[in-house]
């Protein structure tokens, strides 16, 4: 047997994963020994500290390395793309802690709640730095399993359990498809490392490579909730606790799309012609389906779920462009999109707590006047989703469209513009419901008006700042996004 040398492990490069995972262990174990009453506070404090520390570690790593390097025997890759995605995920996690601080019930499960949130974020940080097919699958399942549990964590609500079970079944289906695709690619090229696969695809059995690529793409599309692999999204978004819905819509999308970009660009450069067209098809279906279904929703969470499907379309459009401009547009879009998502679900969460029931367009009546700050913020978020200034998504969409036009697919940009115009109707519907709808049915706050939730308001305020800030400070952010994708070998140059 050949001589074995232990892989050298660069602990500092792993720090965003390790900090959040370590925090999860601390929260999980210590809260068992604490009285129920202070578990939530303890979990929230530790989780915030860990998210801040992990985010700071990712920022430090981003600043430090320009070239990117493989770590842990090349199973993972440290580069600016991974680090930027980690910063987004940790930021979304931090905001989610604020949003969920006053969530009703489940005090004795607060430790598990925050531990799972931290573990999910840690799994996403692992996933975005995956550099072979095994770590890809492992990372995917790592954060997915945490999200399945988080969806169903309110075990006294049947809707939560149902959503968790549905998410588990559909999510595992997607993972299994991705796994089989990975097996085919491994069989064709004899390697599981991304770079080795890319090097080996030329003399590989093309049938296996193409089938594997298709199945991996489908598996990732399930996670990104792109149509036609989106069917779990509305149910899960509706059934999950609202802060978790916000986290899923922001962080899961970041992780899934960044990994889709990385896998397609680094593993399958030889099949670029194929996957750009496949993505364009998925984009069109997502935009059409997401927007049309959102038009008829009255439940706000379901409406936002369909809106997230249509945004998956816009985000994948950036990848379909297959050029560096698209990669930059994707990351820039994700900044604004994450902030708007978390913020809008936070506003839904507080309305839900007031009513102790689902938030519909009708039950939003008068919300804008009752809580001017949150109402105005929600209006800003809706403008943001549409893609109007002063929200960063405006420029995000602009860059996405220019990326596909750059590639020569003007028709795809036109599809995007049409979808945007359609989406004005349902986003404006929310604003209209909050500010212009007469209160025909008396909406009574359950158990009196809840106390002012400073943590949630702070989270919404941060989301507002990021939403507007991404528009105002577009140049430096685009510079950062450019650095992040600088090392990827885009097929279109």
């Amino acid at each position, binding site marked *: 047997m050949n001589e074995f040398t232990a892989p050298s492990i660069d602990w500092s490069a792993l720090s965003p994963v390790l900090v959040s995972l370590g925090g999860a262990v601390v929260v999980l174990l210590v809260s068992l020994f604490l009285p129920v009453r202070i578990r939530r506070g303890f979990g929230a404090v530790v989780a915030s500290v860990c998210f801040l520390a992990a985010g700071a570690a990712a920022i430090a790593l981003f600043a430090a390395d320009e070239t990117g390097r493989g770590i842990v025997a090349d199973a993972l890759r440290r580069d600016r793309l991974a680090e930027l995605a980690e910063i987004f995920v940790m930021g979304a996690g931090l905001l989610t802690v604020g949003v969920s601080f006053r969530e009703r019930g489940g005090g004795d499960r607060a430790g598990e709640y925050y531990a799972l949130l931290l573990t999910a974020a840690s799994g996403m940080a692992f996933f975005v730095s995956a550099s072979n097919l095994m770590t890809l699958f492992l990372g995917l399942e790592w954060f997915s399993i945490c999200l399945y549990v988080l969806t169903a964590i309110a075990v006294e609500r049947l809707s939560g*359990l149902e959503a968790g*079970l549905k998410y*588990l079944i559909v999510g595992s289906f997607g993972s299994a498809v991705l796994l089989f695709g990975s097996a085919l690619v*491994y*069989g064709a090229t004899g390697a599981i490392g991304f770079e080795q696969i890319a090097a080996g695809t030329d003399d590989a059995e093309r049938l296996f490579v193409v089938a594997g690529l298709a199945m991996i793409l489908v598996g990732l599309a399930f996670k990104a909730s792109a149509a036609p692999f989106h069917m779990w999204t*509305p149910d899960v978004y509706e059934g999950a606790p609202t802060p978790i819905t916000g986290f899923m819509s922001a962080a899961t999308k970041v992780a899934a799309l960044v990994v889709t970009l990385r896998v397609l660009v680094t593993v399958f450069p030889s099949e670029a012609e194929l996957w750009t067209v496949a993505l364009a098809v998925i984009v069109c279906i997502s935009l059409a389906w997401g927007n049309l279904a959102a038009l008829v929703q009255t439940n706000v969470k379901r409406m936002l779920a369909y809106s997230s499907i249509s945004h998956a379309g816009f985000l994948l459009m950036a990848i379909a462009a297959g050029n560096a401009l698209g990669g930059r547009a994707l990351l820039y879009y994700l900044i604004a999109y994450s902030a708007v998502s978390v913020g809008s679900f936070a506003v839904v969460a507080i309305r839900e707590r007031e009513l102790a029931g689902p938030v519909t367009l009708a039950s939003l009546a008068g919300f804008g006047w009752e809580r001017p700050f949150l109402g105005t913020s929600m209006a800003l978020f809706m403008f943001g989703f549409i893609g109007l200034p002063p929200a960063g998504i405006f420029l995000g969409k602009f860059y996405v469209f220019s990326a596909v036009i750059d590639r020569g697919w003007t028709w795809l940009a036109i599809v995007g513009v049409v979808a945007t115009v359609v989406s004005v109707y349902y986003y404006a519907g929310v604003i209209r419901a909050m500010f212009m709808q007469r209160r025909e049915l008396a909406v009574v706050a359950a158990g009196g008006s809840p106390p002012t939730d400073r943590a949630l308001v702070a989270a919404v305020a941060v989301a507002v700042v990021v939403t507007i800030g991404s528009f105002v400070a577009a140049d430096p952010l685009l510079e950062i996004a450019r650095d992040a994708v600088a090392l990827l070998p885009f097929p279109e140059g």
Partner: protein
Amino acid sequence: MLGPGIAAYLILSVVLFATGAFGVLIRRSPLIILLALELMLNAGNLALIAFSRQLGNGDGQIFALTVMVVAAAEAVLGLGLIVAVSRKRVELDVDKLTTLSG
């Protein structure tokens, strides 16, 4: 190498995968669906191990071991959720899980 060639293993794994996928799509009992999901994951495992044997490198085998653990975690979570749902209602039929109407 003794035994049937790679093609036989691959065909078997594709058949298993298809069986599992159809099972997930057409069966109604969540328990059977979980079984079908396990079948899909293990079809992937079989393909990985067969390729690993043919290529003579161990990556596929390690991958398969990891998948086994992940699959077990998933199965346990699924069973836990099914038990939790069935404690709330007796009849188990995914088509009747419609508190969230789609």
